[in-house]
């Protein structure tokens, strides 16, 4: 049998796959403007509610900034939950999953592409929420350490999207229950990650347990680094939080790779890649 046409392989195939799978997410941003309503306007409504509650209670003005920042970060959580974790279920329903598995590129590259595209598209949404929210509620930022702020943000994103890649492989085996599980995870994470309040308000062990979700420490660290009173309201020292986020990033990325390989084999063995009903 003759060899098929010469093609990219190895890391070049990996990179081209990552970029190709990121493309629909990036281009979708331009073609579907509905995100302005669902992912900017609605989070801003939630943010406003908390801001007015805090102002009514005469809470420190930094809390308003905490809420705006939390509102921006919810965009990432929603993206990971609905467009990463449960995405493979939808891909299975449309027939894309079978095509991904059948292609010579790796599923890790496909998921990484989803993550990268989702992260970049969501970054724009989060930025819009921060800019508009800060303007609406007159929030002021004082960055204490740019390098640490950049590190906390990037590590939070790496760990968060790594977690999304890991959980997405679990969804390979799920059918319609995927929808319910994603729904079930949405609100508790809002609470546990302290989107709208500092997690120092929790008892220590609850805050420590909540730190498994990368956004928890990410938000806490960023708040400490951009608000004057942030450090006083912070859960752990920022350097320790950076260390934990490095560990979480490694754990979730390695976990994603291992679990994805295992789940792919299991799904092929059980015939669950294309047939939801079995």
């Amino acid at each position: 049998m003759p060899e098929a046409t010469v093609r990219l392989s190895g890391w070049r195939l990996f990179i081209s796959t990552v970029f190709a799978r990121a493309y629909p997410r990036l281009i979708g941003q331009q073609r579907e403007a509905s995100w302005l309503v669902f992912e900017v306007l609605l989070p801003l409504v939630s943010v406003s509610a908390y801001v007015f509650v805090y102002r009514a209670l005469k809470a420190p003005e930094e809390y308003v900034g905490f809420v705006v920042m939390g509102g921006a970060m919810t965009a990432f959580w929603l993206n990971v939950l609905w467009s990463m974790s449960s995405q493979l279920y939808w891909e299975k329903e449309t027939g894309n999953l079978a095509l991904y598995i059948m292609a010579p590129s790796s599923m890790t590259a496909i998921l990484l592409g989803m993550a990268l595209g989702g992260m970049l598209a969501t970054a724009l949404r989060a930025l819009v929420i921060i800019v508009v929210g800060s303007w609406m509620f007159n929030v002021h930022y004082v960055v204490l350490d740019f390098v640490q702020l950049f590190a906390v943000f990037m590590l939070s994103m790496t760990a968060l999207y790594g977690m999304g890649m890991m959980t997405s492989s679990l969804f390979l085996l799920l059918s319609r229950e995927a929808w319910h599980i994603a729904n079930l995870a949405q609100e508790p994470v809002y609470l546990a990650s302290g989107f709208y309040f500092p997690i120092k308000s929790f008892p220590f062990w609850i805050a420590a347990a909540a730190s498994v979700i990368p956004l928890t420490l990410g938000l806490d660290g960023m708040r400490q680094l951009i608000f004057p009173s942030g450090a006083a309201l912070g859960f752990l020292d920022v350097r320790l939080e950076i260390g934990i986020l490095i560990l979480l990033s490694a754990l979730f990325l390695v976990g994603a790779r291992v679990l994805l390989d295992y789940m792919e084999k299991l799904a092929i063995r059980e015939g669950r890649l294309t047939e939801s009903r079995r």
Partner: protein
Amino acid sequence: MTSSPAIQTENLGRVYKIRGSRKEKEIRRELVALKDVSLEVKQGELFGLLGPNGAGKTTLIKILTTLLAPTSGWGKVAGIDVAQAPRQVRPLINMVSGGESSGYGLLTVRENLWMFAQFYGVPSKEAYRRIDAALKDIGLDDRAHTKSSDLSTGLRQKMNIVRGFITDPRVLFLDEPTLGLDVGASRDVRRIVRQWLGADAGRTLLLTTHYMAEADELCDRVAIINGGQVLTCDSPEALKRRLQRDALFEITTSPLNGLPVSALEKLDGVRKVTHSVADGSVTFKLILKEDAALAGVINTLTAANVVIQNFSKHEPTLEDVFVDLVGSSIEDLEQEGEDA
């Protein structure tokens, strides 16, 4: 170039374990989707798998495209075991299914095709060259910049077929490629498929269909599959020749007035009888050992006051071959499947 067959299977089987409801958790049912399938498809062949829905065609394709593990036997594509070395098989194959809605609706036709080409490592410049050429061949070049969500079913299927072509697979699997398409679109698809295969002797195509005429028109060889088993495998001409000793008739009558069909089946010289009812008329397809047996059929019908409305003798088709092998037509089997 080696001499290994493009596709080879030996006693290939697949059993699904079906999960019961919570109450039935202990009861594990099994569904035999494929049983002892042994096939060999030569390089350059257009090979058809013909059978009703649920016959096992798609299961066989899924195994050969590395999407499903067999539970017995083995299958090879280009001499490589699909279960043992799926990563080596994948660069050599592609698959298009009828009625699939793959890709992303917000991307244009060209963008969707480019994206899938990237998963196969086709460099962008080369991918666009192939996409533009294939879209032109298939008559979809004027829709290259249309969002795929805005395409009709037929145009979407043409896009899917281009997706299968642009990665230049050595073996292309087409699973019911004309499913749901109108006559014109189906004809286009068949033409394109033939053209693609003819352009390179190293290409092989395995096609599943439950349309007899499609298999007859397109395929070099056909395997008739039912109940997960391959019943026969040969060229359409050779399969039909097997029935040329028989006399094949189609008779349309008024309602049967209580006459059981078995009365015809029991007549001397009658090998197979299938019938269908539509618009108050009954259409029989008869396979008789000789023309003379027809007299008995007509006598039996007229004795029961059944009016013969139409009557014709015809050359054997693949449908007759299927009826001869299985005892029912594909339509009847699919109807039974739906009723069940």
